């Protein structure tokens, strides 16, 4: 029979099959339909399982921990999820049974019983015991997660509308950081080491969340709160601000990057490299001049020298409500900008980096944005009109309530030529 189904068109074959079935009696027909009725869902489930097992889950999947803190949470949460599932099945089964069993078929009016206290008490004590069973590991886990004494180094993480700043104080931990580093967009940490994030905010409440590494912690202005971070393997882990923080909340993203120990050391060195001015007479050199006139009011590039030969120090506190703007010294060592919302590399390179196996990841990341991967489309759009790309409060006529200070980057009215030059300058910042 299966043969005749497999054979292609053959009207005659089909008829033969029907005839054969008819001759061989009803039992066979019903058997085969029954089998096919089951085969479809089974095949569908199998296909689903196969599909979901080889497909990539969302990068913020809370069930795929990649570090010890997230793993502790995951080990704990499996139980309540499992128990909840069982309870739901039981309730559904009992309700479903009652619905079919006791529907009105003309039976007598049931006895007007007002309940069975023993059953009620039993069904109160049983869940109470289950909840105690969940409660004890809950409390112990949350104390473990709150521990900060065994962390090896510190990163200050500060939120503001709508990006995160990471500053690394000079410290001996995590391989040693000699001078403070200020960066944004991507949190870089050494894999396998316990890093303490000290989380704060400069304006409204934000929340720091890298699901594969740990649960979230709010960044509350006026407070410094701690969160442990540890990634087992080098790799890149995505996150998102999870406390509603105003207009561009959806564009306040983050990425945590874990590098192997040697790689982290290299990254630190790269961040602290002295400033290299562009060669005179190049587009990039003109871009530097433009950068000084247009951008250094808010954006710092460490070591950049003004025409007077002195280092130019940005004063974002004069222009921006939160008082800071991203430090662009090593822009091209990270692959995203403007709150990790936009890419500096092509989509193909981005996907490739995210899919790089952990043993090759450190080297791949440390290359930064390579010339082959560089994609300045989003950067140009941004420079052309930032608020069109990411909603912000930067219309100078509508800033009465902030005393004229911007929340976000204003439109600088740059010409295409100026944008070209600025891009040339910025893409050399590595």
């Amino acid at each position: 029979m299966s043969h005749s189904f497999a054979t292609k068109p053959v009207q005659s074959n089909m008829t033969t099959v029907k005839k054969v079935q008819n001759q061989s009696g009803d039992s066979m027909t019903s058997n085969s339909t029954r089998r096919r009725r089951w085969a479809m869902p089974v095949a569908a489930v199998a296909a689903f399982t196969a599909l979901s097992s080889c497909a990539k889950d969302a990068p913020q999947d809370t069930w795929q921990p990649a570090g010890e803190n997230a793993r502790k949470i995951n080990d704990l949460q499996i139980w309540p999820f499992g128990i909840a599932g069982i309870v739901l099945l039981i309730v559904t089964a009992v309700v479903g049974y009652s619905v079919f069993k006791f529907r009105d078929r003309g039976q007598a009016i049931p006895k007007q019983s007002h309940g069975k206290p023993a059953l009620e008490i039993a069904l109160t004590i049983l869940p109470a015991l289950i909840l105690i069973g969940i409660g004890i590991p809950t409390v112990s886990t949350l104390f473990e997660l709150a521990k900060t004494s065994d962390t090896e180094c510190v990163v200050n993480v500060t939120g503001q509308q709508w990006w995160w700043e990471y500053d690394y104080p000079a410290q001996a931990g995590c391989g040693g950081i000699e001078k403070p580093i200020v960066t944004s967009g991507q949190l870089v940490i050494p894999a396998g080491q316990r890093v303490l994030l000290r989380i704060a905010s400069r304006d409204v409440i934000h929340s720091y969340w890298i699901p594969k590494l740990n649960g979230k912690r709010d960044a509350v202005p006026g407070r410094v709160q701690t969160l442990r971070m540890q990634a087992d393997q080098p790799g890149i882990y995505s996150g998102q601000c999870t406390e509603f923080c105003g207009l561009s909340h959806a564009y306040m993203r983050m990425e945590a990057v874990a590098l192997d120990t040697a790689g982290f050391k290299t990254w630190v060195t790269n961040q602290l490299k002295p400033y290299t001015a562009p060669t005179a007479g190049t587009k990039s050199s003109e871009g530097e001049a433009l950068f000084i006139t247009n951008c250094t009011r808010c954006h710092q590039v460490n070591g950049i020298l003004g025409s007077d030969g002195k280092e130019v120090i940005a004063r974002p506190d004069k222009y921006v409500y939160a008082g800071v703007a991203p430090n662009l010294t090593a822009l091209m060592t990270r692959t995203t900008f403007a709150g990790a919302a936009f890419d500096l590399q092509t989509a193909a390179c981005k996907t490739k980096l995210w899919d790089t196996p952990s043993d090759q990841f450190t080297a791949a990341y440390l290359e930064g944005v390579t010339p082959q991967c560089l994609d300045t489309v989003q950067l140009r759009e941004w420079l052309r009109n930032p608020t069109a790309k990411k909603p912000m409060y930067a219309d100078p006529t509508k800033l009465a309530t902030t005393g004229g200070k911007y929340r976000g980057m204003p439109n600088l009215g740059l010409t295409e030529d100026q944008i070209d030059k600025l891009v040339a300058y910025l893409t050399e910042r590595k």
Partner: protein
Amino acid sequence: MAISEPNPVPALAGSGSAYVTPSTSFGVFKRPVQSTGWRSWVFTVDHKKLGIMYGVVAMIFFIIGGVEALLIRLQLAAPNNKVLSAGAYNQMFTMHATTMVFLFVMPMAAAFANYLVPLQIGARDVAFPRLNAFGFWCFLFGGIFLNTSWFLGGAADSGWFAYAPNTALAFSPSHGVDFWALGLQITGIASLTGAINLIVTVLNMRAPGMSLMKMPIFTWMILVVQFLLLFAIPVITVALFLLSFQRNFGAAFFSVEKGADPLLWQHLFWIFGHPEVYILVLPSFGIVSEVLPVFSKKPLFGYKFVVFSGAAIGFLGWGVWAHHMFASGLGPVSVAVFSVATMAIALPTGVKIVNWTMTLWGGKLRFTTAMLFAVGLIIEFTIGGLSGVTHAVAPSDTQQTDTYYIVAHFHYVLFGGAVFGLFAGFYYWWPKMFAKMLNERLGKWNFWLMVVGMNLTFGPMHILGLQGQPRRMQVWTDFRAGEGFFNLAFWNRVASVGSFVLAIGVLMFLINVVYTTRTAGVAPADPWDARSLEWMTSSPPAEHNFDAIPTVHELDEFFHRKYEENEATGEIHQVSTYEEIMADEATRADKHIHLPSPSYWPIILALGLPLIAYGLIFARLLAVFGAVVVLLAMFGWSMEPSVADESDYDPPVDGGPTKELATLG
């Protein structure tokens, strides 16, 4: 106070003529005593009319909130979508939540409470009828005021939780937050006055023989809710005042730069906000606890357990607020305490689910639409309750909070719980209120579309949240959507499609209402073979509810008058019909019934409040004018007797009904 007076009011001994009240307002205006026409609604103090008005207005706000939800789902149907701008999106989810919580579920519960509580306890009205009217108008004007913000510079854009300091002028420069804060103050007055009114009514005005433990379960749940409101509303009132003063008068309650701690707002908001959850859901628990027994032909299983678990939820509900703040950095000790307390509240909630299920067990079940919604509630609410337990586990909550998993959770609780209960109530009490049966065939379409729609909409949100999609994001990106079975793109689309199925389900209800109003004949007076007192009178009830106040002997009094148990065989058999019981009651009809008379003052007083609020936002002079209106109305009200003088009534036309309103017999 609407009470039956078997004897005329005794003259005040000795005081003689000193006891004088003007029968006309300010000695000029006649009382608006009309019993027909628009005046009979606008100036009414009848709890039934007010209940219906609460219901109609709440339904309109439900549609507005629903349209807002559909716009949100349209925006999220595709990555980087451009249906709504970031600003519009933020206003949309703020107003969706605000509308559904404060302008739909709470007032819809108030609609049922207003209409039914006096009937269920055998009273002729609530304790303070004019206050009741005032509450309704506050709700209506507050709701309209809130929604006018859309046209006056933009609605609130800081979320219904309005976390400081994001509500500060610097961060939310439009007037939206001012509208929000002042609008909720006005609707808060409605809740607070309503709470006091119903508490006094339930505690003082029950029919003879109705001890608290013989009180219908719906009334019990409403009583618990009123106590929750009584203590919760003042907290949000204080918080909103602090916020308004911060924004309008330069106060610094939440200004970090001046040394304030913004977590103060979160504590205030959630000390109100968590009891609020029970304020939203307990009325529906009460409704299904009425509906399930009627259509199972059995008493509610473990009535006392349901009562006490409701009260226990009412108490424990005050001790769990900080579970909304597990990620805010309270420290592990506080988090542990609130985590365990939150688990504890699962117990009384579980008791209810057990009792409803056991009510079905061994019953004689009739699957009317009301029953379907009630049974649907058991399952949908159980899903919401169980996902609640998973984030009572504080460490896993730090992964789940502010993601779509939470959105899934509370929509199962509030849609699967509160809204399903309200719909069960619509179908169950519609013949009581309008003497027409809602169409059952349309009703089943209504139910099944809503069940499918809600599970398609909110079910996928569990996946979205656990896959890491945060809430309140105007856009999501394909890059972070993943692939395969759990990919966010697919499930976002499913949720968006589901929301439209859900909307069609709700539309079915509206079609049913129109269809029924146009075509249905008069419904039987006791169509469901009901159990409680509200069915032991005509449908819709006369303005005075009962010709004779019934004397109560049993829980489920009406059922026990209709049926008796044969002690030998244990069989239940009918001993009398609705008509016989009513004929019996008619023989004891009260001769003098004084009902409170309609009044201008509640609506005028309520009208002054949005004037003050608009004034505070746009022109202080208007606020002064509003305050004058409020003061004059208060004065007029306080000088007005509860029952109008005979001279206020036009002479009866051919013995017409005008006068009989106030006095029967």
